[in-house]
């Protein structure tokens, strides 16, 4: 018996067979979350041990565009990142569903805010969140607290009050 309101990702798929792929309900996946997290941490430690750099993705992206002299290692890391993701998609095709139907305007506004915010605030989830907290940097801990709190409030407003993406 399928409930009237979806409770799990599988319920959502049964209720929306024609649009199963856009399920906004996801299931708790502790094992792969922890495993993937360990890999992300290992990559950050390898980058610091290898070339003495913080694995901050926003800094690398902005630096590629504006810091002419030091592009090389940034490009190598970012190309590697896309290759690593491609490898996963090759091994497990379709495992990560491609969201569709999300409003393009919302996507553009999100990108502009993330770009301006990470540039002004000198970091994102990786540089401040993963690396900065591990360094016990008060700046990074402050930034992480702020972007987490703002992310939660925004997600609630956007999904429940504006009804976008759900």
């Amino acid at each position, binding site marked *: 018996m399928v409930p009237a309101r979806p409770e799990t990702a599988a319920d959502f798929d049964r209720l929306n067979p024609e649009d199963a792929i856009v399920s906004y309900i*996801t299931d708790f996946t502790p094992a792969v979350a922890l495993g993937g997290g360990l890999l992300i941490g290992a990559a950050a430690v390898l980058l610091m041990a290898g070339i003495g750099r913080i694995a901050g993705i926003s800094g690398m992206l902005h630096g590629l565009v504006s810091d002419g002299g030091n592009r090389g290692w940034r490009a190598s*890391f970012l190309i590697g990142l*896309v290759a690593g993701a491609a490898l996963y998609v090759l091994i497990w095709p379709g495992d990560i569903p491609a969201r569709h139907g999300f409003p393009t305007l919302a996507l553009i506004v999100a990108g*502009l805010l993330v770009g301006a915010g990470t540039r002004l605030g000198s970091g994102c989830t990786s540089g401040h969140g993963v690396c900065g907290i591990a360094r016990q940097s008060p700046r990074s801990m402050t930034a992480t607290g702020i972007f987490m709190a703002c992310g939660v409030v925004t997600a609630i407003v956007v999904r429940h009050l504006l009804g976008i993406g759900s």
Partner: protein
Amino acid sequence: MKRHILAAAAGVIFGFGLCLSHMADPQKVLAFLDPVGHWDPSLALVMGGALLVTFPGFLVLRRWQRPWADKIMHWPSATQIDRPLVIGAALFGIGWGIGGYCPGPALAALTFNPREAIIFLIALIVGGLAADRLAR
């Protein structure tokens, strides 16, 4: 050359980890950020797993004089909690909560949702350049 190989290897592991953890999936991120309804706490474990490695790892690396393939350790030097940090983190959080993408996952998404990833990444670059202009 050695620097590039090390950076690329770290990138591959990072990108694979983003996908394995499903943090590259914006629906997963939004299901974490939005506790109203069907909260999915998975992302807390991604962050926790990463810190489990970086915390002790950086404690050891703090004592290194130089990395394998460079002359110095480029630890960040800024210590002040200033206005740009606070405003920037807030803007970033709002954008993250709208789209479900932060920079790393957006790059990973090039491989399974190129349409969304390209639109988001172009806007991200433009937003960064605009912030430079305004801050000047």
